[in-house]
């Protein structure tokens, strides 16, 4: 069983998380990935959130250069300000092995909707570029419920978008994400915080194994926690392989830049 990881990052956060362990450098991260036996990881740099997307994206590109194990995930900004023109973004993604995008609309103060991001969202649909969205990396003043409402609004406007919801909470979020799985066939959830007992089996029984993908959550999470839950879930080996890496690998291979 090969593990492909959709959710890792590195860099020192400006405000430390509750997890004592960090991966300050990309080499710290790859050491952890190697130890866990993770074949590929879609990673990002915390500076993309904490400092500025333009600076963080550049830091990520430099850090992953020549490291085949890592694929990049950049952070987007609205195109109207000229900070991140869509054509330039797409061209740069190709040259830097960036296969997915993240958005932090609350922290970066814009609205993740068609009015603001329409041209980019159209390209993401056409090129099947996944949007990774963390429902956890939000200011304390912003409720989790509002974050989910934002995703519902986004998908209603852009129903063919490939969306992977990551870090969706140790308090089980099935009541939030399952309607999205019902409505949109290119919505997926990651495992990095999907600790709920029997959750994997239950999601597979209802949706099949193709809607849930492994996320290590490194450096904050122990990567083996959900490896163990996947590896010994009461589902067949084919389903385990799909969750561990097969589905994510396919999503990555579908991206055209």
């Amino acid at each position, binding site marked *: 069983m090969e*593990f492909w990881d959709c959710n890792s990052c590195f860099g020192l956060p400006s405000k430390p*998380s*509750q*997890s*004592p*362990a*960090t991966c300050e450098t990309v080499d710290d991260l790859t050491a952890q990935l190697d*130890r*866990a*036996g993770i074949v590929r990881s879609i990673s990002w740099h915390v500076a993309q959130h904490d400092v500025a997307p333009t600076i963080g994206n550049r830091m990520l590109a430099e850090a992953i250069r020549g490291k085949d194990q890592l694929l990049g995930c950049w952070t987007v900004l609205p195109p109207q300000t000229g900070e991140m023109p869509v054509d330039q973004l797409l061209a740069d993604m190709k040259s830097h092995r960036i296969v997915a995008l993240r958005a932090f609309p609350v922290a970066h103060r814009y609205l993740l909707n068609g009015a603001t991001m329409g041209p980019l969202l159209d390209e993401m649909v056409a090129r099947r570029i996944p949007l990774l969205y963390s429902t956890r990396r939000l200011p304390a003043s912003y409720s989790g419920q509002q974050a989910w409402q934002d995703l519902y609004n986004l998908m209603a406007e852009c129903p063919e978008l490939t969306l992977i919801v990551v870090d969706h909470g*140790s*308090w*089980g979020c*099935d*009541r939030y994400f399952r309607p999205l799985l019902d409505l949109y066939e290119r919505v997926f959830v990651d495992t990095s*915080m999907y*600790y*709920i*007992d*029997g*959750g994997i*089996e*239950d999601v597979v029984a209802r949706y099949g194994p193709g809607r849930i993908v492994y996320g290590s959550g*490194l*450096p*904050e*999470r*122990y*990567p*083996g*926690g*959900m*490896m*163990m*839950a996947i*590896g*010994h*879930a*009461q589902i067949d080996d084919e389903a385990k392989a799909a969750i561990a890496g097969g589905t994510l690998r396919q999503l990555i291979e579908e991206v055209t830049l």
Partner: protein
Amino acid sequence: MIADSPLVKAFWEHGRLDECPVIDMHGHMGPWPAIYFPRPEPEQMLVSMDQAGVRRLVFSSHEALFSAATGNDYTARVVRRWPDRFSGLMVINGNYMDIVERDMARFDAMRDAFIGLKFLAAYHNVALDDPRYDKVWAFAAERKLLVTCHTWGHGNMNGPAQVRAVAERFPEVRLSMAHSCYGMWEEAAQLARDFPHVYCDLTAVFECRGALELFCERGISRRMLFGTDLPWFSPLQGIGSVLSADITDDDRRNILHRNAESLLAPLLAAGR
């Protein structure tokens, strides 16, 4: 997968090991309003426990946590049906001291079901060191009970300061800090170092990489308890986290079963 040692390798391969059982010191049971649980009933929880090699679960039912009048009876019924797999904690809710008095009065007759008490201070909005609880702590001390307290960092209901206050006053109690004062790891470790009767319950701690290593480095490997909040968190996720941590196999065995076995032995004997 991580395979740093024979123990870890064997766990990855088989998912469970008879020679290294798991004892889960922190669970619940039944539905809960804010979360969908696929496996909340005792029969379903036993499936998960068997899947992961969990021999025994110490729990307080959700009903007991949030319905003071009826919930402890539910817990007792489940334990009496599966006495080799479940042990109960009697929930104490200081908002209803008349019910607490009732439950304390019948506790000795229910030792077959209950090995100790459970406080959920922040949820009940009654601090661990609230004077209303003095008689309950004294009751637990007299019987050398396990008292599992929900603890969390940075609060005034069940943070390190409140734990320290009661730990100093009641050294006879076996005090388990559920969630290990989440986020205040150094303070939790210091409490376990300062008081030989205080334990770090690792429920939810498994989501914080580095916390297990920190505790072991602070020398409290013999005071760490495996816990999952089952039916909240998969025991496999907890076990996989223990296997992932950069600690020794000795530490892993302490966490997974040895510490709990030592702690439980006299408590289970008292109920026979």
